[in-house]
């Protein structure tokens, strides 16, 4: 029996709209919809796809919903899943920011917009720390510090576009045979 488009839409609509705070928080919700509620695939397959999607760039959320939609019902399924993930939240975003901009000359709206910059700074600061922590776990603090120092020199001091640094790091990754996970397992045992 073919999976209904309405189900595909609802699964990703719910996972998207209940996932506050960016892509990763929606993944457990997506897992629930796909594996438990609709049973389109098993737990293991979902985890495999997630792990592989993580090795590629770009937003994880749309990569997952697009691919899962495709698996369930081909290209139309993919489009329905993407619409469910993206369209409602983009509309909310447009409505909210347009309203904010419409009252820009009111002093209290200007006050609101001034206050929110700092919170955005704190959120990005926390994200930064999350990336640093994960990186130390994965490749150790020494290598993390070396790459970060290189990043500061290349991007801040020299003002070179991040693309070059990221390209170089990817090239190094593909030339490195070192297995960091194995090292970790040896340490554990």
């Amino acid at each position, binding site marked *: 029996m073919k999976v209904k488009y309405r189900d595909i839409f609802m699964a990703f609509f719910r996972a998207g709209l209940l996932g506050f705070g960016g892509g990763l928080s929606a993944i457990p919700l997506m897992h629930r919809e796909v594996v438990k509620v609709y049973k389109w695939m098993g737990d293991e397959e979902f985890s495999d796809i997630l792990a592989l999607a993580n090795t590629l760039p770009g937003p994880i959320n749309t990569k997952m919903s697009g691919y899962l939609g495709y698996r369930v019902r081909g290209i139309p399924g993919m489009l329905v899943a993407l619409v469910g993930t993206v369209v409602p939240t983009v509309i909310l975003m447009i409505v909210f920011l347009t309203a904010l901009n419409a009252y820009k000359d009111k002093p209290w709206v200007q006050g609101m*917009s001034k206050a929110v910059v700092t919170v955005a700074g704190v959120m990005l600061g926390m994200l930064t720390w999350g990336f640093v922590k994960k990186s130390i776990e994965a490749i150790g603090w020494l290598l993390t510090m070396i790459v970060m120092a290189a990043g500061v020199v290349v991007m801040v001091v020299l003002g070179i576009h991040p693309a070059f640094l990221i390209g170089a790091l990817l090239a190094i990754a593909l030339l490195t045979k070192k297995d960091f996970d194995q090292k970790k397992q040896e340490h554990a045992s």
Partner: protein
Amino acid sequence: MIYWKLFLANLIANLLGYGGGPASVPLLEHEVVDRYHWYSVHEFSEMVAVGNALPGPIAPELAGYIGFDKAGVLGATVALFATIAPSLILLMMLLGLLMRNRNSPKVKNMTKFVRPAIAVLLAMVAFDFFANAYHTIGIIHVLMISIASFFLLERWGISPVYVICGALLYGAIFLR
């Protein structure tokens, strides 16, 4: 041409963003603030804050809004396509290859090696935001808001929605 610029800005930001949507936020800032001068740091930080307060993935939210703001519904479509399609197509094409090599350290190392660079990029944008806030509202308000929001978000795990709403209220009352 605006559509081509929208496409390129979002394509570059998301093809380089290793580590999910948030990783592409600083890269997108690089494009829309530094390169095309569509927005000031302040305006961009507003979008990030609102995007974080609303449910859903941040990268498509920013792409959809910026596209719509610059070139209407077609602009939003182009920006969203550039954000979503390339990485999704890569996934569909490479899934078989990746599945066979999933235990290869090389594949795993790609994300690992890029992560510290993304951390630097995120830190740079966070710094921009704080510098901007310092110039507009001064050090005392910046400290008050950052300490309060840090404890609410990090220590007490309050949802970003309430923290952003609280900041909006604080601004409407004390920063007018």
